[in-house]
């Protein structure tokens, strides 16, 4: 086992990607994720990889598509406005089934917004900002260590399903430092990519990677193929964590940074003899709707906590399916909600003063 080291989130993401055998990284500067391209520019070539500073996020995602189509293991990263610019590429990568790992170190919006953390890109990540029926697999780590693990998993899922995988973290996790254990070098599992563009070498028919289907029936058939894949991902790749659901009077739902704030809020409530629980989705798509079936009859309310105006609450309502009242509390625009604010909102909902 490797030793514990103290690392900044963004640098740990980059180092983890290298150790999982990412060989191609394309990036454009944007705060709060600049340490990723900077780290890659310095370190990736030492691991026989290639870094390119793209002229825009639009170019970066298309460079990633090219490298992926050519059979390479690719990662790109950005932050909210840059990820918005990559949406054409997200739809395209899904359409042609090109594997790719993307990290969005998200910040407050809309527009240019702020460089401070935010969770307001949830719709864009889980509903998609590009055109057509498509899904990214979306994973939301709550610590730097978990980010490292999920980056490894993201490369595997991406190759296995031939689908882009998005790691959605916020600027808080990107910018903070935590002690972490890194994986060994060459920890990435590799699979054959017989579909990749390599040149035929005169020994096989040409490989074609295409997105256009001029006949409706052909495009519908391709959509069926994608839908079956998405259904399989929904069946196999849901992940989440729960705490104290057995006897909770109130259940919080939160992902990433916010779930860590909830843990402190739960301690405040416990001191006041209020039992609370937590559902923390780790995969945001596919969404862990089934986790809400684990809630007990002692629960009186569900409170969704987000650094947005309330986006994940839609999924929570689908999961709760009318069984419990669902409400939301959050801060946004780069501010971060405090455990005290969360605890007092919980008390207000429960009618405890």
């Amino acid at each position, binding site marked *: 086992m490797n030793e514990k080291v103290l690392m900044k989130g963004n640098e740990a993401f980059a180092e983890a990607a290298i150790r999982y055998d990412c*060989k*191609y990284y*394309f990036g454009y500067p944007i705060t709060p994720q600049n340490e990723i391209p900077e780290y890659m520019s310095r370190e990736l070539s030492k691991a026989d990889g*290639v870094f*390119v500073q*793209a*002229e*825009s996020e*639009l*170019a*970066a995602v*298309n*460079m*990633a*598509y*090219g*490298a*992926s*189509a*050519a*059979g*390479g293991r*690719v990662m790109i990263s950005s932050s909210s406005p840059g990820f918005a610019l990559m949406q*054409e*590429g997200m739809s*395209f990568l899904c359409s*042609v089934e090109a594997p790719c790992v993307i990290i969005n170190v998200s910040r407050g919006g809309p527009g240019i917004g702020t460089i401070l953390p935010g969770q307001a890109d949830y719709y864009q990540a889980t509903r998609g900002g590009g055109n057509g029926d498509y899904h990214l697999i979306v994973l939301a780590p709550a610590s730097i260590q978990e980010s490292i693990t999920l980056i490894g998993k993201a490369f595997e899922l991406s190759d296995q399903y031939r689908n882009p995988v998005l790691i959605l973290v916020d600027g808080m996790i990107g910018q903070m430092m935590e002690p972490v254990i890194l994986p060994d070098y060459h920890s990435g599992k590799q699979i054959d990519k017989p579909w990749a*563009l*390599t*040149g*035929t*070498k*005169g*020994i096989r028919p*040409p*490989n*074609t*990677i*295409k*997105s*256009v289907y001029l006949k409706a029936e052909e495009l519908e058939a391709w959509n069926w193929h994608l839908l079956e894949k998405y259904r399989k991902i929904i069946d196999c790749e849901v992940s989440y964590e729960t705490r104290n659901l057995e006897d909770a009077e109130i259940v919080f739902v939160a992902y990433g940074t916010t779930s860590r704030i909830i843990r402190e809020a739960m301690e405040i409530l416990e001191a006041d003899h209020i039992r609370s629980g937590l559902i923390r989705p780790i995969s945001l798509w596919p969404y862990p709707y089934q986790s809400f079936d684990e809630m007990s009859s002692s629960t009186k309310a569900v409170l969704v906590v987000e650094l947005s105006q309330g986006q994940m609450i839609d999924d929570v309502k689908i999961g709760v399916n009318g069984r419990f009242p669902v409400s939301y509390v959050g801060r946004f625009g780069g501010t971060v909600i405090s455990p005290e604010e969360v605890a007092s909102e919980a008390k207000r909902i429960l009618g405890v003063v």
Partner: protein
Amino acid sequence: MKTVFEFTKGMTREESIYCPGCTHGIAHRLIMEVLDEMDLLGETIGISPVGCSILAHRYMSVDMCEAAHGRAPAIATGIKRVHPDCTLFTYQGDGDLASIGTGEIIHAAHRGEKFTTFFVNNAIYGMTGGQMAPTTLVGQKTTTTQEGRSELLCGKPLRMAEMIATIEGAVFVERVSLDSPSSIFKAKKVFRKAIEIQQKKLGFGFIEILSTCPTNWGLSPIDSMEWLRTHMIPYFPLGNFRKPGDREMACGQEMGAK
């Protein structure tokens, strides 16, 4: 019996969807003939654009992928990083390259990417039904300039070859035409030269190909050729705008290997 004409190995037997008199087919064939003659078909990767030639991969018998509108040069950049020794080309129309994809083409040239771009300038958007392109001539009627392109409102057409030639990373830039058998033979020589330069890894190569679109120009195929000669060539002069010197060509291989 001596064979005087053969089907090019680089082209599939697929029937094309191009209109009668369209020069995309000629351009495809020339590229594939050159790659075949240089014995590079097995090493080649191509990128087709969004435009009439979106299905180029159906006709060209090499590994290919499609690009979103205008993004082919960025995709090529990614492919070349994975396979630095492959022969790589993008094939793009004037809406694709000179309008929505200007950023990508300029920066591929800027980085001196080691691939070749075949830029088909037919002075119009073919696939979407004949709207104005950045290369549409002043006074030319299109479905979005029904009284003819107005210089006052739309400016004068972009000369892409001249623009790309100002960029240091673009080592080979030439404009050719497909209006006659002799220009087609000349064009083929230029294509070959561009691929040779790519093999030496000297930098970015760009060939602008003046082409016709009889359907959207509203002219017969023969009149289209004449229109290309009388209207396009005077504004888009043929010729070389940039090429490596003999010395660079000679030591190219060594430089590229570094």
